[in-house]
């Protein structure tokens, strides 16, 4: 199945969770948040939230700005 992760189409194994997608992006261990189809997924729910085919996942962190 496929999901759009941070703007790029990525192939994911069936049943992939948000936690697996976060790991795929190489995100640091803290200071990261995830939106799945436009809704925030709390960190505590990453491992139990599946990513459906065609989902849009955004993995964000803080950078210099403002």
């Amino acid at each position, binding site marked *: 199945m496929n999901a759009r992760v*941070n703007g790029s189409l990525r192939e994911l194994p069936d049943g992939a969770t948000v936690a697996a997608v976060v790991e795929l992006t*190489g995100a640091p261990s803290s200071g*990261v*948040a995830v*939106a799945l189809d*436009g809704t925030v997924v709390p960190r505590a729910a990453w491992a139990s939230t599946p990513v459906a085919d065609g989902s849009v996942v955004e993995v*964000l962190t*803080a*950078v210099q700005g*403002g």
Partner: protein
Amino acid sequence: MDDPLIIAGREFRSRLITGTGGASNLSVLERALVASGTELTTVAMRRVDAAGNTGVLDLLRRLGIGVLPNTAGCRTAAEAVLTAQLAREALETNWVKLEVVADERTLLPDPIELLDAAERLVDDGFVVLPYTNDDPVMAQKLEDVGCATVMPLGSPIGTGLGIRNPHNIELITARASVPVVLDAGIGTASDAALAMELGCSAVLLATAVTRAQDPERMAAAMRSAVDGGRLARLAGRIPQRFWAQASSPAL
């Protein structure tokens, strides 16, 4: 003199809020932040794989400086609300510097989207610090929906044009019952001092320091300017006169 800045019940000794954008590297940024004396500093939220350096959070934690996530880059209320919610999740703070800009060329706030986003975020439990035009009517509306501050621009982001409409800033500070933070347009120390003299409670700046030739020294200048402007405001300036008035006794 004990004169803390209080925003949403949180007390700050420093009246200078800084941004982290524009610094050439983290060690330059660190020296500037320390020299500024700031206790609250903005960061932006970006995609992990496009972020490049993420060391800014570690730096702020190490320096004991509070993190103020912004919604820079957002063009609609919906985008800004989602970005704020992501920032709250990632950074464990319900504070947000709310930015909703209308276009990339001016980076001026979109007042319709801004007010909508502010209302939604306040309802969602956020402490909202909105970046707004220097419009006294808009400032009042933002306060009315429950924003913790209003943050009018002096001039557009990154221009260094200073405070283009001092009277509007004074109108805003005269009426506001939340702290007014002059946000954007500061070019040099005198701009920051003027903001405080006009009754602002604090100044938020980034580019003026991070892109100065000597960011550390400019940060120290801004710190002094904010302190000086605040003292002058509290001291009460003399009225302006058309004709001279001798300050020595007559013969």
